[in-house]
């Protein structure tokens, strides 16, 4: 089971949180502005490994936090 450490509430089970998506910027390699918009709106990195994400502590302090998680082992790194 996945446990997430909230800066306000401490170590709480994943059920209390809502997943807010991976954190990423515009793809720098795409130069065409339309293609860049399409990428920003639709595409995901969907990394197999360590990813940076936003999470919302819905059943707690109701604040957003950023964390790094390994999607292979499903453990929080930091």
């Amino acid at each position, binding site marked *: 089971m996945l446990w997430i450490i909230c800066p306000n509430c401490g170590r709480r089970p994943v059920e209390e949180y809502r997943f807010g998506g991976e954190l990423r910027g515009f793809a720098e390699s795409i130069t065409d502005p339309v293609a860049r918009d399409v990428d920003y709106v639709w595409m*995901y990195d*969907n990394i*197999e490994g360590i990813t940076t994400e936003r999470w919302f502590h819905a059943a707690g302090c109701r604040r957003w936090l950023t964390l790094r998680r390994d*999607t292979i082992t499903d453990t929080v790194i930091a």
Partner: protein
Amino acid sequence: MSEQVDFVERRARLQWHEPKPAYDVVIIGGGGHGLATAYYLATRHGITNVAVVEAGYIGSGNSGRNTTIIRANYGIPEAVRFYQHSLDLYQTLEDDLDCWSMYETKGIMWLAQTETQMRAERARSLLNLASGTETQMITPLEAKALCPQLDLSGGGRYPVLGGSYHPAAATARHDRVVWAYASGAMRLGVHVLQHTKVTGLVREGGRVTGVETPTGSISAGVVLSAVGGRVSTIAAHAGVRLPIRTHPLQAFVTNSYEGEFPGIVSDTELLCYVSQTERGQMLVGAEYDAQPSYSQRSSFSFLQHTAAKVTHLLPFMRDLRILRQWTGICDISADFSPIMGETGVDGFLVTTGWGTWGFKAIPAGGEQMAQLIATGRTPALLEPFRLDRFASDHTMADPGSAGTH
């Protein structure tokens, strides 16, 4: 009984091959979709210089982890047409492949507890009727007649207002479907390479020309990714980005239930569904886990929540014991519809975005992808599901039909 013996014998005669250095077509992923594509390439188009490369053993990924429901009651006309075609192919699969797939028509009911969901089901049944598949509205009493075990008060908390009923829904044995396609393809000379993990793609001047494996590279005229779950990783080797997130999907079975449970019960409010396997076990599934993950670990909280939900609806299940649970990782596309066809990189095709609804699409997905590879033209059934629909603003949004199974 003799059918079973026949099947085992045919299975034992499978001829495994050593990899050749080059093939016309290399398919990554030896699950239902990959093997079906190889089978239809060989039978319909005479293309037998094909290899299916599988990291584990065939059917060990999501083809061996799904809940085997086959249905066509989708919420957009393009999807209804596609899945109805798949259902038709499933119905004749036993004759085509000369193999017993344990296909059994059961009928599925989608129960609704809110007026909003009743409206959605009414819209679904009308759209299904107009697009060539049968889905009717049923009253709570009709639901009770179809499934006497149902508690129409939903444990006092989720009273059933009605629902839709799709009589053509069925189940089939997942291993038999996978093995039938594998043996059918291999008899015609297709190579199935088990325990061969694809670690990269070979690229030459912007074109994909083969796959890298730990034992060396294999050249290919066309590479098709038919993997479930890890497609973003494979596509990244070709520089292709996909609107896909990989989520775990869990399920469990109980011990054997002596009573008759002939149909499939699904609830649109509680998001869970129940059917009985051939061995009498009750098979329960629910929605996929909220966070993307490549971990195939199961969780206790899934058992807890899902067991609570199904016992509201089917109180008899309180007396059953949970036998085992498992997890598959599925690629959920941004619009909850599959993505099939060209990727914009020459020589590299995908069939993906099968999320939680891939098993029912195996025959049609395989047949249509084979046609695309053989002719180089996208067949009409696949046209709506191309990857470039996202860029051209023609997404096939159908989350209500695909949420759980």
